[in-house]
């Protein structure tokens, strides 16, 4: 199709867009402070051509105008890939997220010591379950797909997801958390096939990557809601997230969600694997707070490094999640925490999944601070860092570090010019 000869379809589309523009204009008259739009008529866009650089047929690409990408985490920390070519920690661009699903390409990635991504042929992949069972069993991918399936939304969060003064935007403060739709088989279904012995107390899950990462988890969790997942967001789990099989341990810290899952051993005691060693602590309270994730929320718009073009209406938008279950309440403050207002849920909160919230706000153009906080179905409430320091009888200053996983409230400061910065900075 020659570019000089506009297609009829393109003409029709332009017409529709033009009509849409007129409707919008009539419903919401432009305020006096807004400059007139430079487009008097909608432009005629070039066509995206399918070639080897832009995949528009076999596996669709996003628009070239959408450039949101993951970044290494934390700021100034170990790069990914590092000097060995290992992927370590990469954070998802929450500032650009809408809804509750993180696209698989943008899902955060963390590995224990840094890892190469194993290139596993699913036809050759096996999951073996053994140990304190009546019948050890080995499952192929085909076997697993014959069994009754389960599909659930679940977030995964890395223990290192901690806001700091150095972090400038929400990707840096909170980007080590993501939420996807996971499909697979309940681990309890597989364990019932094997017949778990009464002496079973723990299970060890192990991956097929080069370090064969393994973690110990309570058997009660296995029987409750763990999923042996082969699907993620409507397609097979991505290699960086454990293709072809990943263990989902809803609400537990990210490290437990064993990727490239190849073996589960049922045991009668805590096995103190290398990954478990990393969780050891002196204080039983801290150890507990480094296990199941607490209630947490963050405003993604407006957030650090964004800029409000002027006073007026904005819908504040953000995400809330908890390892304790479903989110029951999200509140937003637009005056630095003096008054808290109930936010609106966008959809029904799911257990151990992102809940998108919104709060309608008219900004008066004055400097302020905005915050969000949430409460989950167990009544656990998201605290400020000052509240956490008080609980631990420690002074709250710049050196204070939240014990366990940090689920504290994130403040965003809005200057009178509309620029948004990290309230901890």
């Amino acid at each position, binding site marked *: 199709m020659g570019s000089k000869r506009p297609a009829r379809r393109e003409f029709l589309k332009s017409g529709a867009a033009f009509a849409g523009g007129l409707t919008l204009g009539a419903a919401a008259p432009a305020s006096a402070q807004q400059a007139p739009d430079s487009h008097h008529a909608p432009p005629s866009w070039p066509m995206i051509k399918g070639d080897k650089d832009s995949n528009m047929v076999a596996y669709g690409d996003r628009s070239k105008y959408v450039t949101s990408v993951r970044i290494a985490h934390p700021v100034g920390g170990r790069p990914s890939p590092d000097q060995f070519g290992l992927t370590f920690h990469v954070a998802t661009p929450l500032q650009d997220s809408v809804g509750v699903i993180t696209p698989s390409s943008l899902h955060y990635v963390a590995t224990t010591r840094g890892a190469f991504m194993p290139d596993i042929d699913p036809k050759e992949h096996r999951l073996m379950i053994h140990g304190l069972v009546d019948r050890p*069993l080995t499952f192929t991918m085909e076997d697993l797909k014959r069994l009754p399936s389960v599909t659930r939304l679940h977030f995964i969060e890395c223990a290192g997801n901690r806001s700091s003064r150095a972090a400038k935007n929400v990707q840096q403060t909170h980007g080590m958390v993501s939420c996807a739709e996971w499909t697979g088989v309940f681990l309890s279904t597989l364990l019932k096939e094997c017949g778990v012995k009464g002496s079973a107390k723990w299970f060890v899950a192990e991956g097929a990557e*080069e370090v*064969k990462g*393994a973690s110990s988890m309570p058997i*009660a969790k296995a029987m409750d809601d763990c999923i042996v997942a082969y699907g993620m967001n409507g397609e097979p789990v991505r290699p960086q997230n454990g293709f072809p099989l990943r263990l989902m341990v809803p609400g537990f810290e990210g490290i437990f969600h064993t990727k490239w899952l190849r073996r589960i051993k049922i045991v009668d005691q*805590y096995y103190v694997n*290398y990954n478990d060693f990393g969780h050891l602590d002196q204080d039983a309270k801290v150890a507990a707070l480094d296990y199941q994730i607490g209630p947490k929320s963050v405003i993604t718009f407006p957030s650090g490094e964004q800029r409000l073009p002027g006073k007026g209406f904005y819908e504040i938008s953000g995400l809330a999640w908890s390892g304790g279950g479903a989110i029951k309440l999200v509140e937003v403050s637009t005056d630095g925490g003096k008054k808290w207002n109930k936010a609106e849920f966008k959809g029904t909160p799911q257990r151990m999944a992102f809940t998108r919230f919104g709060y309608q706000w008219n900004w008066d153009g004055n400097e302020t601070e905005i915050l969000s906080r949430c409460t989950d179905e167990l009544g656990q409430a998201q605290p400020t860092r000052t509240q956490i320091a008080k609980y631990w009888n420690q002074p709250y200053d710049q050196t204070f570090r939240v014990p366990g996983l940090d689920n504290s409230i994130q403040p965003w400061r809005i200057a009178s010019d509309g620029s948004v910065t990290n309230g901890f900075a």
Partner: protein
Amino acid sequence: MASHRILSFAFVLLMGTSALAQGPAYGIGRAPTAEEIKALDISIGPTGEELPPGKGNAKEGAQLYRTKGCAACHGAQAIGGTAPDLKSKDPKNPDLWARGRILPLRAPFATTVWDYINRGMPLNREGTLTPDEVYSLTAYLLFINDVIPEDQALDQQSLPKVKMPIGDNYASLPDWQPRTRRLKGYPY
């Protein structure tokens, strides 16, 4: 609430009396042979019951530490390399927890050290060390952290008996149950 009770009841049944009585519901999956299980089962628990035969000591381990490439990433003195330190920078600190997160020092069981060297080391050649080499490297790392003397041999029997400095001075995890707060009495 009712469904919660039913769930708990079902859970008790499953975990308690009826576990042995249960048969497979779907008949899917293949029974692995004992040899297959043995070949894949690299988990070494605190009792060391899965440890393979073999033996080693710190002198042999010191040589292997250089020849197997450990020193290249962890440093010639096991400190200050690009990979994690394997020796404390502050070894005399009376507070063991202040000596750093050093695997062969803070691990509550020597089996954890053996297990991780065996499964995850060395970089790019993981799983290639022989049991004797893993016993020797474990002995070397325990020796440089003053956990065992240089001449102590480690094998299937002696390795699980090594008294690690941390003893039982570490917190156990909460007894996790579904729908419970992450920490009792913690409001957040």
